[in-house]
């Protein structure tokens, strides 16, 4: 694919479709976890996969645009501190996991480990640090409340991405043709 200046066309489209997917899954794709007020947000598995497939810039923008859209059209108001945290998840994950060549069908145990290290770092940064700090700065909410919320949300998201995200990435990589998978017939 020819590279034009700045974003490639594919990244632009991926950001658009990814944001729409993020919003839809954010609205309909929550699974009750059994613990009150804590849901398994499948949408973060999608964000992780798209950051892995299309890179950090796409991850950042899908997080920002997708989360804003979801909050705005289904719930009437974006909660900006968490919107920014979603963007951070996509960005950090994309930066760390970008080297995995999943497009070439490579997602073995090393890929899985790298992907999961990336997602733990990204989610921890976003939900244990960024979201609570912004909640305090913007909304002046009590520190212990927002850090507890962040901790619960962060752990839930880490587990979600570890299980669903990894499975999705593995399933996707199986649909791609491995490089050098052709053998010459004798």
């Amino acid at each position, binding site marked *: 694919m020819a590279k034009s200046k700045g974003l490639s066309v594919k990244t632009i489209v991926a950001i*658009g479709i990814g944001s729409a997917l993020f*919003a839809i899954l954010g609205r309909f794709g929550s699974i009750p976890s059994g613990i009150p007020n804590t849901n398994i947000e499948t949408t973060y598995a999608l964000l992780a996969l798209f950051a892995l497939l299309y890179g950090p810039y796409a991850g950042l923008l899908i997080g920002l645009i997708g989360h804003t859209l979801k909050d705005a059209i289904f719930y*009437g108001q974006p909660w900006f501190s968490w919107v920014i945290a979603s963007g951070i998840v996509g960005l950090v994950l994309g930066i760390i996991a970008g080297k995995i060549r999943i497009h070439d069908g490579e997602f073995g145990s090393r890929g899985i480990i790298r992907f999961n290290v990336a997602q733990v770092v990204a989610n921890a940064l976003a939900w244990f640090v960024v979201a609570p700090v912004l909640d305090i700065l913007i909304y*002046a909410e*009590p520190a212990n*409340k927002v850090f507890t919320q962040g901790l619960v949300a962060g752990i839930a998201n880490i587990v979600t991405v570890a299980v*669903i995200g990894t499975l999705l990435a593995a399933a996707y990589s199986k649909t791609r043709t491995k490089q050098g998978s052709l053998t010459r017939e004798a």
Partner: protein
Amino acid sequence: MSTKMLTYTNLDSPIHRLNGVTKLIFFVVWSVTAMITYDTRCLLGMLILGLLALKISRVAFRQYAFVLGFIAVFFLLNEIAVFLFSPMQGTELYGTRHDLVHLAGRYTLTWEQLFYQFNIALKYAVVIPMALLFLLTTDPSEFAASLNRVGASYKLAYSVSIALRYLPDIQQDYHNISFSAQARGIDMSRKEKLSRRLKNAVSILIPLILTSVDRIDRISAAMELRGFGRKGKRTWYKTRPFTGMDYTALAILSAIVVASFSLTFSDGSRFYNIFQ
């Protein structure tokens, strides 16, 4: 099956006639102002102005009634959580303590806490009318053009436009896949065990994501064939020129921002203290 969401309807009101750029700037600046100030007087003033604008727009109440329920639940849970975690936050912020009633253990309801939580609610409420107005009165196509006009690159504006364009399609896809999965006994609700639920979620997500990846390939190929992204600029079908109304709206906005900031910081603090 249609799920309720906030969508644009074509009406003719002063708000609808405003330029998309004006509405975007108005919404963003309004939200930022509401985030910064904690001054009760500013927030109350802004809330009244917001409700007034909502009335002028003549948007039907039933169009957004359903989100008010969500907002109320979120509101309530948040307020309860704030109190449970930090019943003395108000006292700390305002530096005084006027007990109202002692509940149990460390939970004493103080006037400061009530006032602080009232301000949180207000801060949240102030943005709602503007967010609703922005969503209900801006044509999505014009919105993309507006983003470009206020300085975002047109490629980014296009991403947002694609997201809005494909939202209904993807929602349809999601429901189709989820219904056909349910017809085969794949359930994501509470009736299943958690581990089973996760597994079932994956079997709904995989087809959804694979079709979406296909879709991305198809759309980007089509756009590339039409030479998208070759030039640094592009024109928009749905742009409209600025009118006197737009300049008036922006002037009103600047007046609100200046008034709000000077009122908020006149005593050197974000918080309006009624206790001293």
